[in-house]
């Protein structure tokens, strides 16, 4: 009762990184609250995941296993998660802001009549006093996220409804083994009692899921291009510089929306969060939507023609000039000096 749930996403029996990141965060929050960290795994061929989840601090591992439960389908997974929430009354339920979590989360929040905050960038425990009623609440989950296109940061709370639900994108939280391995006590879920025949009406006819080809999350050097690159043609300069320096190419949302490059490279609140040792932002103004996904980079170089661009405030170096001139000069300089 009153514990912290993390919905664990699996693909082919393997746990998704985002779920392990959420366990790491969940462990910290559960310890602060003095409650148990409980992982919920729904799928098939998943019996072996408990020891791994325990390493990330899971005290309990709920396992709902059955051929009908894999691949993920909305209705059975929602029914089982709701059934467990009804029975166990967790105070918090976290899930990845992935196509699965963003499909499941709202369905469950609606069924439970509880609030759900999407794409949180920070989760903190804190108190609250309602200004109108004067009612005081202890140890709520502060769900913190950029809003309004990233121009403001909002702290959202669910004072009265449980569980307090939040989704978090992959890469936003750090993934670390817990200081003390959790008990990882496996509890089988009697899921057949929680589902009805109607929950299986949607059929999956075909499915092609590929391993991600572009992996900017773990790249040590990232060259990111923004709308200021001007065109898809000019954007190729980012690839040239990345190739020269041995880095990967990222992009701001504006550049992706403009069709300069594919969505898989998008960095920011609605894309990937990265922490490379070097981040070169080319023609990126630096809206919080973007900086939320890269501000922890060890070194940031901004190339921009606008000396007042917000990105300059978080950059270690700002090169003021036209990206189309600066990037070729950097490539030339590197080739001359690297020998």
């Amino acid at each position, binding site marked *: 009762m009153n514990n912290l749930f993390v919905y664990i996403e699996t693909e082919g029996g393997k746990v998704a990184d985002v779920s392990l990141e959420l366990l790491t965060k969940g462990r910290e929050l559960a310890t602060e609250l003095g409650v148990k960290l409980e992982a919920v795994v729904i799928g098939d061929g998943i019996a072996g995941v408990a020891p791994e989840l325990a390493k990330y601090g899971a005290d309990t591992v709920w396992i709902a296993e059955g051929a009908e439960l894999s691949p993920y389908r909305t209705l059975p997974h929602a029914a089982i998660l709701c059934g467990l929430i009804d029975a166990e009354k967790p105070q918090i339920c976290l899930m990845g802001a992935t196509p699965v979590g963003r499909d499941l989360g709202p369905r469950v929040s609606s069924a439970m009549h509880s609030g759900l905050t999407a794409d949180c960038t920070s989760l903190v425990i804190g108190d609250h006093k309602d200004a109108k009623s004067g009612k005081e609440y202890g140890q709520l989950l*502060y769900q913190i996220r950029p809003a309004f296109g990233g121009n*403001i940061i909002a702290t959202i709370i669910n004072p009265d409804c449980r569980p307090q639900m939040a989704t978090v994108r992959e890469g936003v939280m750090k993934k670390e083994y817990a200081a003390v391995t959790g008990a990882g006590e496996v509890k089988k879920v009697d899921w057949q009692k929680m589902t009805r025949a109607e929950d299986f009406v*949607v059929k999956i006819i075909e499915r092609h*899921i590929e391993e991600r080809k572009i992996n900017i999350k773990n790249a040590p050097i990232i060259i990111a291009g923004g709308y200021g690159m001007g065109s898809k043609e000019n954007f190729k300069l980012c690839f040239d510089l990345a190739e020269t320096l041995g880095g990967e190419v990222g992009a701001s949302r504006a550049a992706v929306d403009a069709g300069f490059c594919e969505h898989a490279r998008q960095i920011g609140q609605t894309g990937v969060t990265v922490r490379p040792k070097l981040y070169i932002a080319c023609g990126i103004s630096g809206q919080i939507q973007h900086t939320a996904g890269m501000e922890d980079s060890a070194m940031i*170089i901004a190339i921009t023609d606008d*000396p007042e661009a917000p990105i300059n405030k978080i950059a270690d*170096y700002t090169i003021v000039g036209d990206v189309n001139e600066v990037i070729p000069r*950097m490539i030339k300089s590197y080739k001359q000096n690297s020998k």
Partner: protein
Amino acid sequence: MKEIFKIVVLAKQVPDTRNVGKDAMTPEGTVNRAALPAIFNPEDLNALEAALRIKDTFPGSTVTVLSMGPHRAAEVIRDAMFRGADGGVLLTDRKFAGADTLATSYALSCAAKKLAPDMIIAGRQAIDGDTAQVGAQVAEKLGWPQVTYAEEILGLEGGKMTIKRRLENGIEVVESPLPVVVTVNGSAADCRPQNARRIMKYKHALIPTEAAACPGTLSAELSAKHDYLQIVEWGADAVDPDPSQLGLEGSPTKVKKIENVVFQIKESKCLSCSDDEINTLITELIETHTIG
């Protein structure tokens, strides 16, 4: 048997947060909504196209746009009519104000029950919140299945819809019985443009509040005369809701705090784009083993 479908498209009028200019924030650091143009939420346009294609394939089907918002949100319904929608319903009432996604979904689901469509098609998410919650929550409130991240409706036969979903790492084709809520990705087909003849026909389509605000004008007169020029306007009472689930009161999430974005200012060095300064920087990066 001739098959026809009653389709409801959920559409939202949103501030255009994609092109936030420098004047989008006031000097006090608050959002200057007036500086942001109000637009048809982009993925809702993809949803409208998906619906219009069904109507093309099954003549006699109807596409009704359902939106919730202030009176001016009637603009998106008119826009949809210019592109091919048959009509629309605007849910507008102070009682809806302050709604989070759950209270919004509740209100929309009450209106949807009244419209009783065979399917609801919506954009995956709106660009002002990016939550992607309303479609799925409306489906849950109605007790219907949901298919999110849809890229293309591949078929509609025997009361079942086949849908291609575009996920982050691949695709999935699913089959769902009707009624269903489908939310459509930005990767789906773009919406057809406004049609000149439809603009001439529907530019006088008004909600009653708009008509009342311009008595004696041509638009008001025409709208009063022709049913097809009357956009339906529903207040909360029209959809028989449980009042405790509406607006701010019906919203489990509360905004505790809004902060303006303040960057931690680092000690930043500003360089010119001269060859010399770039050379110095690159050399330093190589020496510190940041690169190379």
